[in-house]
């Protein structure tokens, strides 16, 4: 039978694998307890082959793959050590010993046996709202200097044995975190999702023989590999470099560079390699990435740039090589703090986009809001006296692309969590949202405009603790080929009032008094191409829609809009001409 015919069979089996991962994901979302998983879908599921190669992924958050692959590698390289039996489930979150990428991401892994042998591994991951540590949500806050402050570390350990939860282990974990009842519910949901996957995989193994499945998975790996290599062949070979700078690590105001050198090679078989030499050493503050997080960020970028529709699996990873200096910001060592690593992940994607802009200008975007902007409120409910933790992740502007404006107010790149409905937030927590809107003039000007940033003003109805990690508060997202950068973000306490106070982008456990308002503002996306090349009508439309001001239209785009809401054509022509000449005269 020729390989091509297998392409049909493997499509059929692939479809089934994909369907199983999706069903696991649906079941997990539906039955979880915490809003973070249920409403924001901060979870993912995956299936691996017995040797630890990714077969199928149902992801809501691209960065999750890193932790699932990480734990898989820990377990897969020594299955004997773990003495795995049917009905056993391991749990882990530790970036240094458990393949995780930050502590709140709890990953579970379960072997699936067929005919007495491990035939596959199932994993799922869910972002828990709290994992202990020095403050509510500390594992996400990014203001720590050591991982010990960020919460309980769980190396791979059996949480379920022979379909029975191990209560002693469970008790240690739950005793170290806030809101144990909710966490217990989430864990139960994660376990049930694995059971569902096991049931379905067993059906699949019964239907096809193990041999067929092995052959099919190998063909599926080839399939994704072929696809990516084909796409890489279309890109010009060469080495492309880019550097971007992060605001700071929360412990000082020092800027932190991330540097990449990407080589696309057509020799032998097309491949792409990433070298992060030149990137800053690991930071004191909690913005470090471990290698699993870097892997996930690179895989995301390659897929988004070269093959958005590809099936992500082990074969997809074959043409990709990653090199990162030890003990650097993007390959940190124990005991570096990693809670705010998603901001860095976002920046790694921006840096890759910046480098590949030289190779495939039509496939990338200018810099996006470049942070995940997680804000965390914690405290005690006034009436019930019970603890609460509320985590919000805010989107922002997306960078413009070669032929399109960037999206306004959206989650970009390595995350795609949804917001919590305002009504759900206010019913659940002693918080009130006063404002939730796009920020005018925040999108980087350009022939194609960067997306607008988001502003969310939240009032504390009881005294509470606030933690956060964000970036792009001082270094704004860049534009390309004449496009301007997006507006930076900021955290403001009591905006618009005389005692308004700026809060830095990475904080842990600062007190917010009753009735005070925290205004979280993210960054806008960078623009592409000269703003003077943007069609006048589009500039006018942005003005009419309230996305830019008249002043901005004039200053950035040279478009003069009359009070009547019409373009002053003659003045616009001359103003644009003059600006173009000025631009040309610039060195």
């Amino acid at each position: 039978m020729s390989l091509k015919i297998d392409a049909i069979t493997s499509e059929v089996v692939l479809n089934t694998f994909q369907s199983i991962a999706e069903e696991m994901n649906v079941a997990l979302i539906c039955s979880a307890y915490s809003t973070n998983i249920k409403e924001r879908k901060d979870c993912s599921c995956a299936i691996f082959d017995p040797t630890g190669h990714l077969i199928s992924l149902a992801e809501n958050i691209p960065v999750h793959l890193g932790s699932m692959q990480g734990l898989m590698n820990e377990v897969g390289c020594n299955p004997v050590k773990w003495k795995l039996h049917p009905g056993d489930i391991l749990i882990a979150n530790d970036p240094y010993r458990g393949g995780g990428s930050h502590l709140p991401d709890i990953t579970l892994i379960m072997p699936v046996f067929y005919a007495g042998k491990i035939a596959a591994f199932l994993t799922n991951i869910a972002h828990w709202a709290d994992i202990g540590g020095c403050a509510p949500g500390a594992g996400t806050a990014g203001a720590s200097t050591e991982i010990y402050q960020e919460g309980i570390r769980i190396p791979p350990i059996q949480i379920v044995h022979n379909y029975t939860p191990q209560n002693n282990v469970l008790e240690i974990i739950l005793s170290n975190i806030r809101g144990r009842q909710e966490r217990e519910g989430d864990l139960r949901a994660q376990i049930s999702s694995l059971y569902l996957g096991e049931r379905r995989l067993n059906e699949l193994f019964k239907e096809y023989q193990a041999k067929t499945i092995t052959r099919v998975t190998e063909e599926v790996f080839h399939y994704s590999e072929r696809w990516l290599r084909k796409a890489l062949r279309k890109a010009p070979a060469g080495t492309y470099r880019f550097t971007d700078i992060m605001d700071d690590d929360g412990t000082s105001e020092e800027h932190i560079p991330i540097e990449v050198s990407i080589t696309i090679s057509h020799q032998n078989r097309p491949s792409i390699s990433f070298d992060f030499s030149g990137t800053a050493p690991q930071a004191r503050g909690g913005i470090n990435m471990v290698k699993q997080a870097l892997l996930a960020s690179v895989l995301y970028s390659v897929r988004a740039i070269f093959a958005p529709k590809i099936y992500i699996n082990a074969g997809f990873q074959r043409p990709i090589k990653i090199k990162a200096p030890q003990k650097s910001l993007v390959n940190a060592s124990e005991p570096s703090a990693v809670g705010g690593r998603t901001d860095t992940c976002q920046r790694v994607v921006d840096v890759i986009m910046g480098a590949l802009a030289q190779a495939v200008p039509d496939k990338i975007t200018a810099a996006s809001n470049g942070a995940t902007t997680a804000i965390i409120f914690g405290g005690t409910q006034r009436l019930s006296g019970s603890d609460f933790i509320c985590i919000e992740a805010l989107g922002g502007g997306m960078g413009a692309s070669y032929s399109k404006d960037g999206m306004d107010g959206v989650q970009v790149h390595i995350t795609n969590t949804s917001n919590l409905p305002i009504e759900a937030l206010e019913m659940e927590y002693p918080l009130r949202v006063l404002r939730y809107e796009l920020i005018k003039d925040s999108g980087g000007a350009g022939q194609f405009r960067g997306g607008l940033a988001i502003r969310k003003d939240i009032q504390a109805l009881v005294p509470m603790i606030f933690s956060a990690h964000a970036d792009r508060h001082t270094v704004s997202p860049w534009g390309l080929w004449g496009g301007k950068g997006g507006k930076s973000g900021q955290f403001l306490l009591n905006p618009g009032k005389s005692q308004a106070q700026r809060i830095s982008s990475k904080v842990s456990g600062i007190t917010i008094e009753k009735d005070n308002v925290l205004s979280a503002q993210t960054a806008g996306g960078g623009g592409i191409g000269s703003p003077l090349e943007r069609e006048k009508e589009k500039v006018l439309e942005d003005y009419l829609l309230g996305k830019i001001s008249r002043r901005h239209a004039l200053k950035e785009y040279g478009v003069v809009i009359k009070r009547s809401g019409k373009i002053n054509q003659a003045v616009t022509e001359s103003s644009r001409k003059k600006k173009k000449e000025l631009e040309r005269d610039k060195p």
Partner: protein
Amino acid sequence: MNIAIDTGGTFTDIILYDMKKSIFWTDKIPSNPENPENPFIDGLIRILKLSGHSKNEANNLIHGTTIVTNSIIEGNVAKVGLLVTEGFRDLLEIGRQQRPDLYDLKKGRKASLVRRDLVGEIRERVSSNKKVILPLDKKQSLAQIKTLKKKNIDTLAISLLFSFYHPIHERILEKLAQKMFDKRHVFISSRISPEFREFERTSTTVIAAAVAPKVVNYISSIRTKLSAQVMDHVRMRIMHSGGGTLETIEAEERPHALIESGPAAGVVGAAYLSKKLNLNQVLAFDMGGTTAKVGMVLKGKLQYSQEYEVGGEFHHAGRQRGSGYPVRSPMIDIVECGAGAGSIAWIDEGGHLKVGPQSAGADPGPACYGKGGENPTVADAHVILGRLRKENFLGGKLPIYPDLSEKVIKRNICVPFNIKPVKAALGILSIANTNMLRILRLISIARGYDPRDFALMAYGGAGPLHATELAEMISINHVVIPFMPGLFSSFGLLCTELSTDFVETIMIPITRIGSFNKAITRLKKKADVWFEQNGVIIKARKMEVRADLRYSHQNHELNISLPHLSLTKNDIQIIQKRFHKAHTKAYGHYAPDDKIQIVNLRLRAIKHYTKPRLPNLDAKSKLPVAKNAKTRLVWFKEGRLACQVFKRSTLTSGFRGTGPAVIEEKESTTLIRIGWDFQVDRFGNLHIRRHIQKV
């Protein structure tokens, strides 16, 4: 006499049911998407002629329409203005702040149905504990409405925070607005969707406002046409997505409820038929030209979901979340995917064969139509395999060109893969089938059911062609092909009730019986007003109450039916048990010690109609069976097998046969695989059962 008219994308199906004689008359004519009312009237007149009835006798008309869905997909909607609470003008722009595709950097969100400059902010605020923190500023409100009026909006949607708790502010705005706008063009969220979660509530209200003028015009143009035919006496009801029907006047008030009214009708038909056949668990499977849809029927009862995205895009299994506009309205739970007879087979970048979600549609359609289709489709694969024949395709009304099917399959699939056409055709079908299996699984397994316990009821033009193959793949042993499968949605229309839904968000622990009962009473009162308006006598009034329940820490609800309209302590225990059970069913676990919270209370008010009697085959068909005994060679994955070919219209009650077989009828073709037997029941339904259990 009842007449059902189901307007689909390609065809308008008409059934006339003569109640006195229990006879069905059917017809199928091409749809006219520009003027759907034309085939509506033409079809109506034709069926009356065909059946020899006078216009006077047509008194009861039930209509399923795609007008709402289509107008949103095509962006052919009204200019909508929106009023929201100050500080929240971007509720629709930001939505859930998600992008529809994780990796496709160029895939944007659908443009909001309201231009950003047509959103006005109102100074007012209500808190989560139902208190007014900032009273509505009337003067400022009036100014905002006037501004929008000046911008020439067609309709106005109003959606304030916490209006489901405190609708007064919205009502004040409604009153102010009605002075400046047609009453039928002002929509407030506390009437349209009085439930919590502001984005979905606002989106639903905006959709109602966006499609309202279109719906009003459509209904009035039908009325005008009826009038021109001297048929003013016709009483028309329109199918809503919740499985019931609305009087036209209510359809104008709640136009968002008309989304997906056609597919819902099919599932209603399946529910009715499964009751008649005593089938406990049925998967209702509808496969047409561009999509396949599946609904679940349990003990003859429909299953509902409370949210849907209209205008969303398909990916291989189901819709892409975030690619459409959310609508919240009780909907028959239907999962769909882009797999139909017209779905296109293609090779992706990695060299795998894919089928759909792109479709050749009705024009040019599959290559075999000979209308210039250059892409191989599922229908072409069936032609290659000898399953579809020209003599039989749509009753021979449309010609079929098998050589064209072969040409495109050879060029697009055989050459790159270096395989024979038959292998390519089998490949296309097996991939289309796995796509459909995913939705069959999604609806059953993901909801805690085992598909093997179900019967598969297949209809739509292409459903019966795929049914036994699908059943075999998912281990279902009983397939039912209803009589008239090609017009089954129209049959479903004949089985509908008059019904409407009321909802209230209450957010209380389930143990608070007093508040619980009070809320039910409030909804009952609303229902009684509705019954009065629709002239339903007290005896004929039926009400069903359900509650959306969750453990108090959760944020997703399960919809549970309540035993009575007035609850006792004992009832509460029953409800708790039901919830735990449903939770276990859906998610595999439950938490007996956790508190249960009632989020929404839902009441459906229903007026029943006499259902059509199923045809009785014993009485009429007496054709000798021998006439059927032709054979034809058809390709299966096992090879080329000689199939017995039957004309369905000649099969008598009790007739039995063995697969492989092909049963042909005017609107559809049923394929029966080897290893399956079939039998015709006394109503004319085909029961296909597996006789060799798979090892």
